[in-house]
């Protein structure tokens, strides 16, 4: 089970300040990671390039789809899709730029900010049921990776991580240690 909170502070309730302070001071931060936006920039570049080529082809061949009107409809469709994809990638870049992953000796945590809203999510190691590591083609080229915890059970995904091997090994070690 993951814990969600809409603030940066941990949501666990404590009976006294001193207990809270004592417990906080026991948490050891092992790794703090800022994900990279390079894959998203590559995605943006590819999207723009492919869309502009398709738009250019449709402009240069007004009767490509039989009639001028049919080709115009396809042109409008491609332009709408391009705008949607560009905005989508821009949102992803905004989220990733404000995202921080923190690996401590007790949990893995993801925090980000979007439109003035702070969101954080953490998974304590004793609640981790599965850990996965993956790299798509772009991530492989850039030597970054994605770590997934509890996939299918309310998962937590750490995407676009530089030094992903090191992070993965630390998480695996902490899971064993906390079982």
């Amino acid at each position, binding site marked *: 089970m993951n814990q969600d909170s809409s603030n940066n502070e941990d949501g666990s309730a404590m009976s006294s300040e001193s207990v809270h302070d004592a417990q906080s001071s026991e948490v050891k931060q092992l790794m703090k990671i800022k994900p990279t936006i390079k894959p998203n920039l590559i995605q943006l570049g590819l999207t723009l390039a492919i869309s502009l080529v398709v738009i250019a082809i449709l402009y240069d061949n007004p009767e490509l789809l*039989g009639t001028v009107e049919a080709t115009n409809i396809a042109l409008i469709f491609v332009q709408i899709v391009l705008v949607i994809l560009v905005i989508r990638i821009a949102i992803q870049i905004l989220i990733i730029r404000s995202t921080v992953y923190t690996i401590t000796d007790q949990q893995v945590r993801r925090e980000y900010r979007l439109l003035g809203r702070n969101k954080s999510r953490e998974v304590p190691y004793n609640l981790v049921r599965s850990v996965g590591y993956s790299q798509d083609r772009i991530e492989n080229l850039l030597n970054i990776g994605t770590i997934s915890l509890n*996939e299918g059970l309310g998962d937590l995904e750490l995407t676009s991580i530089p030094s992903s091997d090191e992070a993965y090994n630390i998480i695996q070690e902490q899971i064993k240690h906390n079982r």
Partner: protein
Amino acid sequence: MPWGTEAMLYGVANSIFRPSEFVQSNTAIYSNSRGAIAQYAIQLCIVWALNLTLYALPLTAAGIGFSSQATAPAVFTELTVPLVQLTDSMWQFISTFIRNSVFFTAASAIVLISFHTTVVITNGSRGLMQSFHTVVYTTSAYLAGIFALLMYLSTTDGLSQTREIVLTLQVNTFQAVLDTLGWGVIGIELSLPATTNPGPVTFQGISQTGMILLAVLFLLVLYFVYSVYLGARLNHQMDRTSAIIVATAIVSSPVIYIAGSAAVTILINIYGGQVI
């Protein structure tokens, strides 16, 4: 489930820019008690009902499907007379609202049955609630959008050519299915009634607004199919091939409807003594 204006705005933004976030359910809920699951099912029904109202209420208010002939039944009049003076008007409004809701409700039910049946057949089901969540969100956003756009096309002046194109595409699709089922499967010619002849699609004379509406309509159809695929992948944890099978089944479900209509027509004609 988050409510409120902010949540709705996030929902609208996610439905356009992040459909995976929009469609994905919080699967952790389904491991909770039956009470929690029942509560979530009720919330999903409320989401669906609200979206149905958003779709059908403007149509009803615009007078689409309205019949001034309808008079309220005695039972209804008895119940509402203490509350409203114009019981006939209230009855006409309610019956028009129901009439405008029927098609969308039936389509949602068909999508739910097709989706969950296919998921079960492909051995990928994680439960009915996951299917229910997927269908509520996909139909509420994208299917409602398609229906609203079609209704706008059929009732707005200045879009007759666009309307004609959509109708011709529908008729041609129906006839193509009938041809496949008829000649291809049972060896006889099946055809639509004489008033609805298939023919070539003519784009000539279409306005700029009509072109934009057709592009948006096509986009909504793609969004709908893609969201069904995402629902299968994310909520049922299915692999790509199985999710594609599920999406294909949804796209093909109108074929079942057409085949059923053709079968019923054949039986009626044979039983009635007519020759096809």
